[in-house]
């Protein structure tokens, strides 16, 4: 799949060249951690035996993955609306490599932002548990989650008629994925009906697993279940992107 690499590489070149996008992503990370984390820390000093910064950092990481995926979907939407997709379609390359090139570049951006936030979070006082194996698994889970959400973003990008339409659709996913989860508050404090919604959200499982693996919090959900849900989310997201993409290139 050399073509996948060429397309990934091209998207990375464009990404690194686009100073506004880079600066925006970096500042977003800092703003979230500083404004939200520090502000809430004044209100809540400790939660489930951990400082609040360590508690919300996994949620902010998940959020940054969403942000990165939205940006990645934009690249594909832009190439589709500008017609650059046709250059790929006229080339002797597998159709799948076009989607994979976009999916991997999207996931790379998302991970890039997550790592940036992690660094800012640690600088602001979040404390990682000393568990390198756990860090590694957390990173893989973040990668899978990135792939899943990139899939959703790319699926929307494959069918949107305009950039505004894309953002409107994505916003519908983005907001509930963050707030209807355990990112900012523990599952136990929520009323029953909201718990039910939160448990339908794959973000909840990602965050619980990262908290357990990288920040040493006691798991509130079985770890194997969390890993299974995140993996399933990645597969579903990829499948969704693939089917929408195939529908688009056929017409």
């Amino acid at each position, binding site marked *: 799949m*050399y073509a996948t690499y*060429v397309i990934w590489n*091209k998207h990375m070149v*464009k990404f690194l*060249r686009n100073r506004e996008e880079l600066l925006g992503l970096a500042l977003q990370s800092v703003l979230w951690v500083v404004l939200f984390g520090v502000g809430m820390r004044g209100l809540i000093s400790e939660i489930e035996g951990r400082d609040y910064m360590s508690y919300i950092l996994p949620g902010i990481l998940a959020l940054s993955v969403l942000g990165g995926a939205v940006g990645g979907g934009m690249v594909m939407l832009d190439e589709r609306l500008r*017609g650059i997709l*046709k250059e*790929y379609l*006229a080339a*002797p390359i597998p159709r799948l490599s076009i989607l994979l090139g976009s999916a991997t570049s999207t996931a790379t951006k998302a991970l890039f932002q997550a790592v940036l936030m992690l660094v800012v979070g640690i600088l602001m006082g979040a404390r990682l548990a000393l568990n390198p194996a756990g860090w590694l698994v957390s990173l893989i889970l973040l990668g899978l989650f990135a792939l899943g959400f990139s899939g959703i973003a790319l699926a929307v990008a494959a069918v949107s008629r305009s950039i505004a339409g894309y953002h409107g659709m994505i916003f519908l996913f983005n907001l509930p994925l963050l707030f209807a989860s355990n990112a900012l508050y523990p599952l136990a404090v929520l009323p029953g009906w909201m718990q039910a919604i939160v448990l339908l959200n794959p973000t909840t499982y990602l965050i619980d697993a990262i908290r357990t693996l990288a920040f040493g919090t006691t798991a509130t959900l079985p770890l194997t279940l969390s890993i299974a849900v995140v993996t399933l989310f990645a597969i579903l997201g990829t499948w969704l992107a693939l089917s929408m993409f195939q529908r688009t290139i056929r017409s």
Partner: protein
Amino acid sequence: MTTFAIEAHGLVKRYGDLTAVAGIDLAVPRGSIYAMLGPNGAGKTTTINMLTTLIVPTAGSASVAGYDVVRAANQVRTRIGVTFQDIVVDQDLTGREVLDIHGRLYRQPTAVRQRRISELVELVQLTDAIDRRVRTYSGGMKRRLELARGLMTDPEILFLDEPTQGLDPQNRVGIWNYIRDLNQTRDLTLLLTTHYMDEAEALAARVGIVDKGRLVVEDAPATLVSNLGADVIRVRGQGERDQFVAHLKSVPFVIRVDLDTLGEFVLVYVDSGSRRLAEIVASAGANHFQIDDVTVARPSLGDVFLHHTGNALRD
């Protein structure tokens, strides 16, 4: 090795109830320039999209460079170059990167890519701008870059969809010169679409007029024109126009009679304009049609186009 670079038989493309291409046959000899001439929405781009494997035909078949566009799509893709109707080029890359990435998609080795880029940049005269971002290019420069991209992989056949749309006259003539030059020096086959008569006339060995998804007529531009008659007498006036037209059709030396799209002019094709002018003017008077204006001219491809697609009167 077949003699035709492009062959199509009964090519059809339907989108639901809409028929974009209603059965087109093509046979473009190797090393020739073929122009599909037609109004916007005639089905030219859809035809090109089928020939370049972007979309699959609903019915019919086509082969390009000897390979079937559906069953051997990848074989076709490696042998063709394409430029699209709209300018399709990454704004954030430099011209050199655009060409280089294109070559990499086709798995050209680095040395070949570098050699091709330096050759092509010279050909399309972008030497000074090639390391600048495409964002800073003018429309004509972007078109030239696209032309270079289409040629990057040294194709046998180049498809150009509306190659000079939106360009100023100077850039248009520039692109025409590249196209002629490529055809002559490299024996490249070119299929282009256009809605400019002068473009088709200036470039193509054969012109196919496309209207409402069908190929209406096809021939060398000069033959298409001379088939209409040696001269056209354009008559504008008022009165019994229908009676005048009916009378003209019964005159032996009148080859055909058309009305222009606005119905303003009666176009009378005759064997010799200067010799027949007096008779035409006299017959207008005899049929109660008062002439305001009359001109004699050689028919143009525009007249051919009007005759085949516009408000042509039935013979």
